[in-house]
């Protein structure tokens, strides 16, 4: 599990590069490039969450808050104060990092249910702040007029340009995270997941690593939020509610928590489900999510990434039964 092969990454990168071209050839899926921008944005969050939950074993059901912090910092500073968008992005990430460290330090001493509830409470508090600080955030109506991104006069003014920008970041983050997983840090995180006392007996500074991963995942979520705000030019609090945090959880649970590839597959599936395939279900949508989550938890504890193992085991059983 720790070794992550290079070839699939190259194949995946190639697929990402040619995807908009393929989509353009087939009218039915032409707008899929747009959805893929969202997949990319959400992947930035779920890659970090996968490291936090799958590798370090710390649950968070409050990451919508960090996503929102990035979006609102970018939105407010660019739309109201006309600041440079990239600088705002960095400011957003810095604020998210500070908040994550402040909330994470006491939270990550908690375990299991307590940690889950603490992160839920944190997420709801931030959500209430987005709704109530109308002067800054525009309240429940949201804020519009957030400018698009540009770099040295190059305007990111089309779906395709955002697509390459966002996925460029996703690939960079992915490769960086894979390297982290394969380094001593990754081994330390897995040790923490397996047993905190054992890890700390082996000289792993458990607390420091937990905070580091939490901050890292928060920073990524904030970055994703900034992209989201600039891409849509409009944000409102309902995007950053508790259900979005749960949706992130569904994404990585579906893909397989213990696999970073799982995070990407799960994010892609759920995003396409909610933006495209389940559009007509509307009210049913949430039931479908619940059913997926329950199904995966009960029958596929390792998510889709665990399917090959399950199939292999089933075949082996059939073969041995025949003998």
């Amino acid at each position: 599990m720790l070794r992550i092969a290079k070839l699939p990454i190259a194949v995946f990168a190639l697929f990402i590069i040619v995807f908009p071209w393929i989509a353009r050839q087939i009218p039915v899926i032409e707008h899929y490039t747009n959805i893929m921008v969202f997949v990319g944005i959400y992947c930035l969050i779920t890659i970090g969450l996968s490291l936090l939950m799958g590798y370090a074993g710390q649950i968070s059901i409050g990451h919508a808050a960090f996503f929102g912090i990035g979006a609102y910092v970018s939105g407010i500073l660019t739309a109201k104060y006309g600041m440079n968008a990239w600088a705002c992005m960095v400011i957003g990430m810095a604020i998210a990092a500070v908040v994550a460290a402040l909330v994470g330090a006491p939270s990550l001493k908690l375990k299991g249910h307590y940690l889950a509830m603490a992160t839920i409470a944190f997420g709801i508090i931030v959500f209430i702040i987005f709704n109530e600080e109308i002067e800054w955030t525009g309240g429940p109506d949201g804020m519009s007029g957030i400018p698009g991104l540009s770099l040295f006069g190059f305007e990111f003014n089309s779906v395709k340009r955002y697509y390459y920008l966002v996925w460029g970041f996703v690939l960079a983050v992915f490769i960086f995270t894979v390297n982290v997983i394969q380094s001593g840090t990754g081994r330390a995180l897995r040790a923490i997941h397996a047993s905190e006392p054992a890890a700390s007996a082996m000289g792993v500074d458990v607390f420091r690593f937990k905070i580091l991963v939490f901050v890292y995942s928060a920073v990524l979520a904030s970055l994703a939020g900034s992209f989201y705000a600039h891409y849509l030019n409009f944000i409102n609090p309902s995007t950053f509610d508790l259900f979005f945090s749960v949706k992130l959880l569904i994404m990585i649970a579906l893909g397989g928590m213990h696999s970073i590839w799982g995070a990407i597959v799960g994010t892609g599936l759920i995003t396409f489900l909610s933006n495209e395939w389940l559009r007509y279900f509307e009210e049913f949508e949430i039931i479908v999510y619940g059913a997926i989550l329950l199904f995966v938890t009960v029958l596929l504890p390792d998510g889709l990434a665990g399917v090959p193992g399950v199939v292999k085991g089933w075949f082996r059983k059939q073969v041995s039964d025949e003998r």
Partner: protein
Amino acid sequence: MEKITLASQLLQYFITGLTVGSVYAMVAVGFNIIYNVTEIINFAQGEFVMLGGLIMVFLHVAMGLSLILAFPATIVLVTLIGILIDRLAIRPIRCPSVLTLIIATIAVSIIIKGTASFIWGKNPFDLPAFSGRNPINILGAVIQPQYFWVIGFLVVTAVALSIFFDRTIMGKAMSACADNPNAASLVGINVKQMVLLSFALSAAIGAVAGITITPISLMEYDRGAMLAVKGFGAAILGGLGSFPGAILGGLIMGSIESFGAGLISSGYKDAFALIVLLVILFFKPSGLMGSVEISRIKRF
């Protein structure tokens, strides 16, 4: 026109707080029942309250069943849903870890929420108050009679539960599971049945909370999550696993929320309870009445 004095206003906040707090207390007691037997925190706990309210509206208002009949019928229906949760979501998990149990109960809660929005739509529903809506004037504070029903049912629930756990074989068997499931099964207690019973019992209590609070605060499909978080806050505040703690925690939580909304800011009403929850979690996770020893025995 009587002048509204600060004292009467404070009294008003206090009684409102106790009423809302009674609901949090009942949710917290529900958390504790399941937690004590299974060490699971049932994140769907708030959905029982929502279901209690909405099913009661359906039976009492839409079907025209009388209060006396609709009340127990609602409790029975919600209890059945609690039993289904155990059978369909909790028991089938083969190797339960904290993470999978948390996720499973979250999944259940969004399934219930989605189904409720499908059945009842997104609008809040009202329920006629049990004994009319003529407010009673106490020392300048204006109190709805329904407030007393809510607080009264908390008392009834607390008394009934303490009789159940102290005086009946089944209650004692459940307490035994809470102490040590392995030892309990060695002396012939069917632990699986007790787990089922714990889900049934806490669903029933949730339903009572939902039925009694709906005439005051209305009820809609998405109320569950917030109730669960606040109820959990109450349970932690009192010390997870302790029943007197849960009731005390609920009442304190409700009062803080009511005074906060009245004196500081009504927009941040929901945030006060959550901030209290975070402060307790960060500084004294064992709560007011929880024992450190118990939290050491528990695996999660």
